[in-house]
Structure formats: structure tokens, C-alpha cells
């Protein structure tokens, strides 16, 4: 069974969200349009709507991530769901319980939805194939594979500032090799019809045969950034660096760190994005991160609305 058919039911509705790969353009647009409604909820006196009242959502994080877990938690609470946060890495698995046993136990507590973060690629997919009908799974990051809600909130952000994808030049810069965010962005950007998609970084941080995804590869930052409408910086994943992929963080900053001097080569109205958490002075310079072209904090705000959209679509089955 292909991943997309696990995600989308026979009736065409979203059942799980595991990856942006194979997600039809129409479904992506549906999610972004739905998120539009939720952006305004955050601006109200009462930041809560009752759509998921009575639903129980488990935030199951086998790998730590305070920010992603928090944004999912806020999104679920604004939809009135009951949310339980489980830092599984620190409990069951260390006692020897398998991934699926953990899930079956939570399912026996009448879970309606699982939000799963795991260091192994495919973990959320495995869970989605084993949960009961009507129970939804959202992949909140699996290994190097996918982080679809991050990819979708980035699409929301780009659409918000640039309106139309069909004439954009977009560059993704940095540690593409370790980045599930980059993969989710590339699939979504290609599906939405971005004509010029570039990845920029050193050879050691570029996946083999990345061109097959329909991107142009640049090893020179200035050349790659030239004429871009959108510049997406990736976090240098120090914790995933095993072996000598890089000489040093300082050397990386010199070649691929986004500074004001490098950013002038992009279009004057280019936006700068970063999925967070940022390493200032490693992949991005502070004056750029805090500058007028940065939309890094709006990304966070939009991320809540996009997660509310996905959860509400999954929660109505």
C-alpha cells in the first residue's frame, strides 16, 4: 500500500497525515484554506472553539522537541480537545515496551488521535497501519523522512506573503541531508507548482541524487540565492552529525550562513524563513533573523492554525 492511500481514505478525506509526498495539490490547498479560518481564532478574546470537544489526543514523543510538542498542544487545546503529553523516550521504551505495544495501550485509553515524533523514519506510518479505524495519526517528525505539518505551515507562510506559487524561485539552504523538514517542503513545493526550486549546501550535507526530487543543486550560496523570492534556512543539526561532515560551525557560517551581505542577491522583497530552533551565527546571522525580511515568528503563529486545520479535518471522522 502506498503512503498516500494510507493517508487518504476511499472517500477522499484525510485519514492520517504522515508525509507531504503524494499529498494532492487540492488536499494541500484544502488544508491551507481551512487554516485561514483558524488564524483569526488566535486573535480573539476567547481563543477556543469546540470542534474537538470530548476527543482525546496523545502527543507521543519518542524524541524530544519542546517547540513542536507545544504548538501541537496549543492547537489541540484551542480546538477543545483533551491533550496528554507523553515523553515516551523517558519511560516505557526504556523498560522494553515495543512501539506498537505503547500505542495499543494508549488506544485502550480511548485515544482519538496520536501525534507521533520518533527518531526512526517510518514510525508514524507503522502506527497508522495498526491503529483502529477512526483513530488518526499525525507525523510530527520521523527520522530524516518527513515533518508534514512543518512543511504545510511553510506553504501557508509562503502563500500568505507571495500569494501564488507558480512564478516563485525558492531556495532551501543548509543541512538538507539530515532534514526531514526540507523533504516535506520539497514535496509540497513541487506539488504546488513552484517552477524553480533550489537546494544550497556543501556536498557532504546533500542527500545522494537529490536532483531526482526536481531541485537544482548549488554549492555556492551567492549563486544559489540569486533572484530568489523565498529563502528557507535549515537548522544545522549538530546532534545528528556523526563523523566529519563539516570542518566547523564557523566555517559553515562563512560559506552558507545567511548574512545581510548574502541576502542582497535575492530579490528585494524576498522573505527569509527558518523552521526553528535557530542557531544564530551558524546558519543565520542575527541582523537577518531579526530583520524586516524575516517571517520566522509569523511561521510559528501560522503553525498553530495549520495544525488546528489538520487536527480538525482528522477529528471529524
Amino acid at each position, binding site marked *: 500500500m502506498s503512503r498516500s492511500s494510507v493517508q487518504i481514505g476511499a472517500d477522499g478525506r484525510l485519514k492520517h497525515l504522515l508525509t507531504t509526498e503524494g499529498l494532492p495539490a487540492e488536499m494541500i490547498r484544502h488544508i491551507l484554506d481551512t487554516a*485561514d*479560518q483558524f488564524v*483569526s481564532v488566535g486573535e480573539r478574546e476567547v481563543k*477556543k*472553539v469546540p470542534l474537538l470537544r470530548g476527543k482525546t489526543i496523545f502527543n507521543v514523543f519518542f524524541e524530544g522537541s519542546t517547540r513542536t510538542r507545544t504548538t501541537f498542544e496549543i492547537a489541540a487545546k484551542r480546538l477543545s480537545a483533551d491533550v496528554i503529553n507523553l515523553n515516551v523516550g523517558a519511560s516505557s521504551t526504556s523498560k522494553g515496551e515495543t512501539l506498537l505495544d505503547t500505542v495499543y495501550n494508549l488506544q485502550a485509553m480511548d485515544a482519538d488521535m496520536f501525534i507521533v515524533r520518533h527518531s526512526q523514519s517510518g514510525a508514524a506510518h507503522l502506527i497508522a497501519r495498526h491503529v483502529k479505524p477512526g483513530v488518526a495519526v499525525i507525523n510530527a517528525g520521523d527520522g530524516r523522512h518527513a515533518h508534514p505539518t512543518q512543511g504545510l505551515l511553510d506553504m501557508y507562510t509562503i502563500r500568505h506573503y507571495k500569494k501564488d506559487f507558480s512564478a516563485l524561485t525558492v531556495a532551501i539552504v543548509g543541512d538538507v541531508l539530515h532534514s526531514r523538514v526540507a523533504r516535506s517542503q520539497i514535496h509540497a513545493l513541487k506539488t504546488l507548482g513552484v517552477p524553480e526550486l533550489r537546494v544550497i549546501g556543501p556536498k557532504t550535507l546533500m542527500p545522494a541524487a537529490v536532483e531526482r526530487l526536481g531541485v537544482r543543486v548549488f554549492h555556492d550560496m551567492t549563486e544559489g540565492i540569486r533572484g530568489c523570492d523565498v529563502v528557507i534556512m535549515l537548522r544545522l543539526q549538530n546532534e545528528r552529525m556523526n563523523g566529519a561532515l563539516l570542518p566547523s560551525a564557523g566555517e559553515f557560517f562563512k560559506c552558507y550562513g545567511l548574512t545581510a551581505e548574502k541576502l542582497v542577491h535575492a530579490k528585494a522583497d524576498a522573505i527569509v524563513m527558518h523552521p526553528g530552533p535557530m542557531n544564530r551565527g551558524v546558519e543565520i546571522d542575527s541582523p537577518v533573523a531579526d530583520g524586516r525580511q524575516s517571517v520566522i515568528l509569523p511561521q510559528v503563529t501560522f503553525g498553530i492554525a495549520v495544525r488546528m486545520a489538520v487536527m*480538525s*479535518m482528522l477529528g471529524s471522522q
Partner: protein
Amino acid sequence: MSLPDPEALVRTMAEAMRATIAPDAALVGIYTGGAWVADRLHRALALPTPLGLLAVTLHRDDFGRIGLHRESRRSQIPFPVDGREVILVDDVLHTGRTIRAALNELFDFGRPRAVRLAILADRGGRELPMCPDYLGAKVEVGRDEDLVLSNDNGKLRFAAVKRP
């Protein structure tokens, strides 16, 4: 039975409202038909408070059954709700569930002093205790029909439409 002319009903409602509503009252129309009616009432009454609009999708009680509709319209309440008299305006009153959702949506923006209900056409069939303060007309349609307000180039018209 012939259906009434909505434009004439709006004029009748405006007269009744002019005599009784508070000077700082705010009109709030429920999308889509209620927004058309509220817009007309707002102009006829020349109220100083800007017109508000409510989208009720986020508070609908049939979400679990039919899911979330794609909805580009958002509630817009361009005045402070706290302490104000709010007149909710809708085109057709049937089960009362839309009004229940609209009240919840309205209260997300603050605590009004009072809420009144202005309805263009009451077709009966209530499932909740809702009663209009201002009413254009009672209209009879078949149980298998919907009373639908349409806007043809700025002219409001009623139609009775068989449910699929």
C-alpha cells in the same frame, strides 16, 4: 402559497426596529443570507456602529457528522462587544441551531449587554428554544423543502427548494 418579497419585509423590520433599539446597538449578520439582510437594515437605520458579520462553522453541532466545510469567510466584529446591545440578524429561522452556534461565536468576542434576534422569515420547526424579537413574516414551506434566500444582482428573493 406564494412567498413574500424579502425587500418589503426588510422595510417593515427596519420600521419596527427603529422605534425600540438602543442608540449604540450593533447589527451582526450571519453569513450568508443574514449578512445581506443585516446590510440592508444597517443602511435603513443609519446606525453609527459598523456592521458585524458572523461565520458559525467553528461552532456548528454537526461537525462530528459532516466535518468542516471549506470556509473562506471569517467573523468580523469591528466594535467592542463588551457591554453593547447586539442584534443578531439571519434570513431564515428553522431549527434554531444556527442561532445557538452564532451566540457561541459572538461570545468569543466578548460579553454583550443584551442580544436580540431579528429574522426575515420564520418557517417553524424549532429544535431549540429560540424566538425572534423582530420578525419579517412567518412563511410556510413543505417539510421536505428548504426556504432559501438568494441575491440576484442586489435583489433579494425567496425560493422553496426540495431537499435532495
